[in-house]
């Protein structure tokens, strides 16, 4: 359709080709080249060293920690993130604007600063420390600190994805369900939730990708203690520092592939959800 409208310009002009070339070169130098070089770098000595690196005990342990923390953070974000988004859209209460502004804070704060904040809050110099110590709770330089840091860093993703979705909900349907006598719970699961699905998928995707990729905050608050507070990214960093390059590259490649896969799967889920919706509409038009 667009092409027909633009019919008066059939042939591409030189300027057009130059612009296309410029964009291809830009993305090539910036993104495609580095990605290819990571793949080539990891497989520099063939397949075996890569397999050995990603199955080594050190990497497996760090990946296990990342995975456990990721699952915990994702579940909490799913519940509380959706709740907070809901509250920000549907409820009115004093201080809501301020609260709304604070949601974006983690987006703007550097990961290192996040980790440092948590150290100040829970570390040895903190006012809370004697209490935590007596209870035997270790937060700084321990997995709970890493968990809190990841939670902080991922905070806005779910909420910012959900707020526009909730704003665009068709309230007529809710009123209709309410007048037909549906309880709040039924209204949520039968009417609201199906409309939220694609927003939830996208918010979760961003959260998962971030939980796997966070490094600065996790390094500072966890201290990168080998085998104890070493997440996958910290493991990669240590391998780089110790010049075990094949191990670093292989682990980085695995992490990169995993993150890209997550995004691809969510895109696919989202488009299949949308397709289902449109075919459903076709089957019963009104």
């Amino acid at each position, binding site marked *: 359709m667009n092409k027909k409208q633009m019919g008066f310009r059939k042939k591409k002009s030189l300027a057009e080709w130059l612009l296309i070339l410029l964009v291809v070169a830009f993305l090539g130098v910036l993104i495609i080249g580095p990605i290819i070089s990571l793949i080539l770098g990891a497989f520099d000595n063939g397949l075996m060293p890569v397999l050995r690196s990603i199955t080594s005990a050190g990497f497996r342990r760090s990946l296990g920690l990342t995975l456990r923390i990721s699952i915990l953070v994702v579940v909490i974000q799913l519940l509380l993130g959706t709740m907070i988004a809901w509250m920000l859209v549907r409820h009115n209460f004093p201080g809501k604007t301020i609260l709304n502004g604070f*949601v974006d804070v983690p987006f*703007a704060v*550097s990961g290192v*600063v996040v980790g440092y904040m948590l150290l100040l809050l829970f570390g040895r110099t903190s006012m809370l420390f004697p209490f935590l110590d007596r209870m035997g709770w270790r937060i700084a330089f321990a997995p709970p600190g890493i968990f809190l840091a990841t939670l*902080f860093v991922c905070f806005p993703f779910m909420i910012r994805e959900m707020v526009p979705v909730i704003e665009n909900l068709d309230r007529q349907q809710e009123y209709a369900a309410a007048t037909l006598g549906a309880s709040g719970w039924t209204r949520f699961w039968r009417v609201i939730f199906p409309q939220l699905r694609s927003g939830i998928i996208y918010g979760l995707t961003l959260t998962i990708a971030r939980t796997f990729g966070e490094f600065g905050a996790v390094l*500072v608050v966890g201290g990168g203690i080998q085998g104890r507070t070493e997440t996958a990214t910290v493991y990669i960093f240590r391998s780089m520092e110790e010049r075990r390059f094949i191990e670093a590259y292989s682990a980085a490649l695995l992490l990169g592939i995993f993150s890209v896969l997550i995004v691809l799967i969510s895109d696919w889920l989202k488009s299949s959800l949308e397709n289902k919706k449109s075919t459903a509409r076709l089957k019963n038009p009104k």
Partner: protein
Amino acid sequence: MNLALLRRKERRNPGAWILRLPSILFLILVVIIPVVVIFQDGLREGFDTFFYQINLPIARHAIILTLWTSTLMTIINAVMGLITAYVFVRFDFPGKRLLNAIVDLPMAIPSLVTGIMLVILYGPQQTLGVFLMERFGFRIVFASPGIVMALVFITLPFVVRTIQPVLEDLDQSQERAAATLGASPWRIFRKVVLPALVLPTLGGSLMSFSRAVGEFSAIVIVAGNIPLRTQTAAVYVFSQVEAENRLGASAVSIVLILISFSVLFIANTLHKRWGAHR
């Protein structure tokens, strides 16, 4: 009437508070308290110490380096993001869909991995890195160009993806009218297309700036941690935490937070304004 009834029901519903209370608590515990703590710590010995700490040569160099690399990145991203979005929306060429998908990759790829990628391709041990170094004396890795490059990589989707939808929604009849009146394509772009894109470009650029100011992972890999040379503010905070210099770490952290906040605030205000215009 129905609406009013439901609203009233919602207000009286004690369930609303069951929803509200944990949300507010969560926000306070997870977000607000840590921010308050860092301000309290950085300013605990007064403003003089605070200014002294951020004026130390290494700290000042780190802050200035962060600011100029982020600014340069923002300019590159604004220009290249604009061109990229324009090419994607208006032109057709083989491989466009693939390239378009590639723009999203920086969102998914952990920035630590980004740093490693750039080091492999442009690093001093690699052919391309050596070639650039010997032929042109141009260092990318362990130097400021590497910082800028890493930042452009990480924030690329912000600008492109803010401009793209605006450009797609743009009414093309004005452009066609200008074309029939004999305006050159460049003139059409400047006078008709560009004005509509100024605000989204600015918004996306500011978002990327506020993200770039705090970047640590990619930079620590690409630029290393060399004080007075390639140490950015976030890396400086890291090294001060390691050195247990709390005052210095807190002071520069506060500076970082203030910069990101103000930029993000401006970006949000712009976003609201251009949302209202449409």
